[in-house]
């Protein structure tokens, strides 16, 4: 048997795969073979490392070398220099932006220092397609412990004690949910994993399924044992082909190893999992809509009660949990509720995965203990705002959430604090905005999304979101009146109070959370026909500053509508009637003589 001395881990998450990381794996293997080291060095693809900003990532162990933005052709130099001669390849090392110094050990990266990986414990650590590596990392031990050493009641008790709350956005105590499903009688019960991740900018569920699919398989079996179900279903969107592929492989392998199927570990417990494919509708993340979609009906929500725990899939007691919630389950059972209790805040225990996106330096996937502040997440881990711009706001909770601003930065993140601030945890998407982002436009973006995703069943959501996005459109075009702004508020509140399901009730949140805080910005659009962030093209005007223009003619040559006139070496002028505000002249001018306002 070959005894490897080094492991080369290449990120095999969707982000890095689309940047050709699988080619890097092949090239590394070939070069290693050419150098006769195939028995000394193992190359494998793993799940997401989280540092998507600088992908594809290649990590070398045991020395924790972290190579970023690796191209397939870099495989040769990595093998020749690092693997053969022991010299790290400086040009591929991550450089800390604040110091410009190369970091040769990922332990020293600001990005990882404050993170704590529980749900992502195996992502970027094991080969997701290899069940043996999962078993080596205590995989299926929690299931074994539950089946052999614990009663279902004890499992539920442990989950309740841990304080784990639903990570899909609701924040409902998981143990309690399981208890309801256990107590409801039924000849057949179901465990459902909600992998219909639909928030724009959120990709933690996908990454967990891609990087550690067995953790979900194991957790679903544990849940089945706890509530008395022998059948599990994963509802996953078909837009996640890689996650689907790895999950299919995990289920197949688990069956082969006897960890799914009849009489698991000779305990008398049967459990198997089937995958159901969704078409990627946002509303299907709502559990009743999800269940209807699985039954082949339209993905429309119905009122609760009855809750799925009483009458769910085909009218049977059903427990629905989100992917990240499930990913926490095996660890809690193995390390104990007491251990889990020590992490997080009083009412939000454990960690939370966040997907950082927008105008932030380190776009990627992170996991931090609950109670970490927004400032730590955005500035320490996230590396601050791109291009040294000023932080303006962060949208948490996706289209259902709200915007938090500078004054909220020191808020410890947990379910209750975010709600108190008028936003929400949601599934953990964080979209960071800088001074160039126009808040009415941001609200419009989210409302267009919910308008599109509204299933149309109830009037407040179907028509309300349409009217809201029309009003916001008027604002961004400078056509709105002050009455329209009042209408925005009233309509938002009405939709919030009357819509049928969570989608509609939370759809106005992007308006409600920005209209108060950024009232001046809304008013500027209405009263002055001005967009302070300079984003709304309809309100923009481009001017040439007389004192700076040297008459180089570059702007007039680039203007597509011949709106700029002027002789060589004399000041140019923009004809506002002709100008289409494309910004070509603004980008072209080398003397900062063109301004927009």
């Amino acid at each position: 048997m070959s005894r490897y001395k080094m492991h080369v881990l290449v990120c095999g998450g969707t982000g890095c795969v689309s940047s050709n990381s699988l080619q890097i794996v092949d090239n590394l293997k070939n070069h290693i073979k050419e150098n006769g080291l195939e028995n000394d060095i193992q190359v494998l693809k793993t799940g997401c490392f989280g540092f998507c900003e600088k992908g594809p990532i290649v990590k070398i162990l045991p020395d924790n070398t972290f190579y970023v933005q690796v191209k397939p052709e870099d495989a040769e130099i990595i093998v020749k220099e690092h693997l053969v001669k022991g010299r790290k390849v400086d040009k591929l090392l991550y450089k800390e932006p604040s110091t410009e110094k190369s970091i040769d050990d990922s332990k020293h990266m600001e990005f990882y220092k404050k993170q704590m990986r529980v749900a992502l414990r195996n992502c970027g650590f094991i080969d997701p397609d290899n069940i043996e590596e999962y078993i080596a990392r205590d995989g299926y031990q929690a299931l074994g412990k539950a089946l052999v050493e614990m009663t279902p009641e004890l499992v539920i008790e442990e989950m309740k004690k841990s304080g784990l709350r639903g990570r899909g956005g609701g924040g409902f105590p998981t143990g309690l949910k399981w208890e309801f499903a256990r107590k409801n009688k039924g000849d057949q019960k179901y465990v459902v994993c909600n992998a219909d991740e639909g928030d724009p900018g959120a990709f933690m569920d996908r990454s967990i399924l891609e990087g550690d699919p067995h953790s979900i398989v194991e957790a679903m079996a544990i849940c089945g044992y706890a509530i008395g179900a022998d059948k599990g279903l994963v509802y996953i969107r078909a837009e996640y082909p890689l996650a689907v592929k790895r999950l299919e492989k995990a289920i197949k392998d688990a069956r082969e190893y006897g960890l799914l199927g009849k009489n698991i570990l000779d305990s008398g417990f049967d459990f198997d999992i089937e995958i159901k494919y969704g078409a990627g509708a946002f509303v299907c993340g709502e559990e009743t809509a999800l269940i209807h979609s699985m039954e082949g009906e339209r993905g429309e929500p119905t009122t609760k009660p009855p809750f799925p725990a009483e009458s769910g899939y085909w009218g049977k007691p059903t427990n629905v949990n989100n992917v990240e919630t499930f990913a926490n389950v095996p660890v809690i059972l193995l390390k104990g509720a007491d251990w889990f209790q020590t992490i997080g805040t009083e009412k939000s225990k454990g960690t939370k995965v966040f997907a950082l996106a927008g105008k932030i330096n380190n776009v990627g996937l992170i996991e931090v203990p609950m109670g970490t502040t927004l400032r730590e997440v955005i500035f320490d881990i996230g590396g601050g705002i791109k291009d040294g711009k000023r932080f303006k706001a962060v949208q948490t909770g996706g289209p259902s959430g709200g915007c938090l601003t500078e004054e909220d930065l020191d808020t410890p993140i947990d379910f209750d604090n975010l709600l108190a601030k008028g936003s929400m945890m949601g599934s953990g998407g964080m979209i960071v905005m800088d001074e160039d982002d126009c808040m009415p436009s941001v609200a419009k973006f989210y409302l267009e999304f919910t308008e599109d995703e509204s299933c149309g069943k109830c009037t407040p959501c179907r028509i309300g979101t349409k009217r809201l996005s029309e009003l916001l459109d008027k604002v961004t075009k400078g056509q709105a009146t002050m009455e329209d702004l009042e209408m925005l508020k009233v309509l938002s509140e009405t939709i919030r109070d009357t819509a049928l399901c969570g989608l509609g009730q939370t759809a106005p949140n992007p308006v409600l959370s920005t209209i108060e805080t950024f009232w001046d910005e809304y008013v500027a659009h209405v009263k002055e026909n001005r967009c302070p962030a300079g984003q709304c093209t309809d309100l923009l005007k481009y001017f040439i500053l007389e004192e700076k223009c040297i008459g180089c003619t570059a702007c007039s040559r680039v203007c597509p509508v011949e709106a700029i006139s002027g002789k060589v070496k004399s000041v140019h002028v923009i004809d506002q009637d002709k100008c289409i505000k494309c910004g070509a002249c603004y980008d072209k001018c080398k003397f900062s003589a063109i301004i927009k306002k």
Partner: protein
Amino acid sequence: MGKIKSLDELRQLREQYKSKVDIREKGDQIEKMIQVRVAMATCGIASGARDVMNTLVDEVTNRRLDNVVISQTGCMGYCYAEPTIEVTIPGKDPVVFGEVNKERAVEILEKYIINGELLDGIIPVTHKTVDD
């Protein structure tokens, strides 16, 4: 692979598979590890560093030393004394041993790494690093 039929069998399997991720587990906790770096530049390899490396890896695995991690490094500059290895016990200064062959590697492992006893053949530190 047949079906796993009991929790005991699953536990045995875990022990058997542990070595698959061992290097990664150690790398993850590198600050708590006794680190052994084998100089593997051209001169080191030419004088037999690869044999030393293989011996160390085998010994550490066979003796199940969970707190020792072996890695390779570039030229340390002591070309006259190759193969050289550097051993860093957490909280102590690194110690460099010269002219290490397979037998000496085992001796260093047993005496210094396991028991903390120093032995002959230490190369005095002749330089400072940028971190000092």
